[in-house]
């Protein structure tokens, strides 16, 4: 089947544990779930990017209008957050590409790189807020 169905799983209950208050993730798990969340948020924001892109290219008036929207603080804040999610996703992704190439695979190195990224990410956010706001 093309959609990833697996009949061998039929009828067998899959283990699930989604109690957010009782989940204590290791730092690598925290990076992993934030990688997923930032990806989903960026996917959800795609129509906004497309809409802004389209209107900025329509005519000089649309271009000026988009610049006006981008200058208003609610959209500025949103764009700072979106850029943060994108950069967080990108950096976490580069780490995974390195892991794929057997670089930093050991538990200690993997923890260290995950910790570094989780610290670097808020710094990126502060930098972006400084640029946008």
């Amino acid at each position, binding site marked *: *089947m*093309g*959609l*990833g*169905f697996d009949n061998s*799983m*039929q009828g*067998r209950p*899959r283990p*699930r544990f989604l109690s957010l208050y009782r989940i204590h993730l290791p730092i690598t798990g925290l990076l992993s779930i934030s990688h*997923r969340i930032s*990806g*989903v948020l960026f*996917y959800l924001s*795609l*129509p906004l990017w*497309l809409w802004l*892109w*389209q209107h*900025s*290219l*329509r*005519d*000089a008036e*649309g*271009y*000026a209008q988009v610049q006006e929207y981008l200058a208003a603080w609610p959209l500025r804040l949103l764009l700072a957050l979106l850029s943060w999610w*994108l950069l967080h996703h*990108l950096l976490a*992704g*580069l780490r995974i*590409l390195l892991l*794929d190439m057997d670089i930093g695979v050991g538990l200690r190195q993997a923890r260290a790189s995950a910790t570094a990224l989780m610290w670097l990410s808020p710094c990126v956010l502060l930098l972006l807020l400084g640029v946008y706001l």
Partner: protein
Amino acid sequence: MNQHLSGLPAWLVQRLSAVYLALFVLLALLWWWLARPNDYAAWHALFASLPVSIAVGMFVLALLLHAWVGMRNILLDYLGYRPGLRLAMLSLLGASLLAMGVWALRILTGVWTGVLA
């Protein structure tokens, strides 16, 4: 049917598209920093140039493939074994990505034809 975009092919597509997306974003940031267009004519001329529209078109395609694999992985992980719901959500995901792909294509071609209502 073969395993379309699942298993190893999906993993490979996710990685290859990731490399292109990362290179594109980093180069775009560098370009934005060094030589950003500051009026409508320059902005429009940018996307009217063939190399840029090819690079952006490939970016959109890579983004759609990347989003498909990533969102599909997440849906399969969290939906559990509910074939009907899974089919519905994956269809919705595919349709939304296709719609955005057509939208992006219209923007890129609209720059040439001048029709961007």
